[in-house]
């Protein structure tokens, strides 16, 4: 699992690559929180296009990212969500609280 980010006019784009299961989730959460806390963006785009697999650990990552965004008044959206990850997120109802594309 790798986490990359880029900045542009108040937007932080965070790209996740690889598999996102329990083994990778804590590292991903910590890295995402660091990025948000350092840059204090107005908008956060979590780009999941590079994920080859995600289980319910990814739900916790998304929800914790949402909480971090809410704490600083930033908006969160998901981009490039693969079908498998989308099904996991939808099964948990995450699509009702986060914009998933």
């Amino acid at each position: 699992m790798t986490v990359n980010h880029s900045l542009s006019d108040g937007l932080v784009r965070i790209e996740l690559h690889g598999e996102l299961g329990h083994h990778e989730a804590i590292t991903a959460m910590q890295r995402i929180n660091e990025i948000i806390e350092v840059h204090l963006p107005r908008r956060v785009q979590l780009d999941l296009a590079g994920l080859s697999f995600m289980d319910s650990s990814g739900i916790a990552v998304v929800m914790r990212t949402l909480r971090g965004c809410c704490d600083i008044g930033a908006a969160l959206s998901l981009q490039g969500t693969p079908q498998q990850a989308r099904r996991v997120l939808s099964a948990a109802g995450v699509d009702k609280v986060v914009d998933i594309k």
Partner: protein
Amino acid sequence: MKNIINEFTVRFPSRSANESFARSAAAAFVAQLDPTVEELYDIKTAVSEAVTNCIVHGYRDTLGSISMTVRLYEDGTAEIIVRDRGCGIADVKLAREPMFTTGGADRSGMGFTIMESFMDKLSVRSVAGWGTTVKMSKRLTRREAK
């Protein structure tokens, strides 16, 4: 489900690094039934949840052994049994409720919900202090038995 046409059992330590191995091994074996890509992902996801439960809950703060059996049936059904000898679940009905978790902030409490959603059948047998066995199955839309 008729006759078993193939099966394997693997045993591995409850290290989180083995989650990826377990889901990949199960999917590779089930691929013999020629399922769709989506069905293979369903199997991988369900196995990942079951094995993670063993590691996070069954053997919390300890290292134990997890066994996984995958059986393929004549009618195209894949059956997966994941077993630990960890602390067990005191209240299985409560544990299967969405959002329930005894894990940390990295857990969503959606593991059993995902397993139920992605597989056709799921049963959980557990005795506190003796461990937990999760059995799940899915009928695959295979094109032809090998």
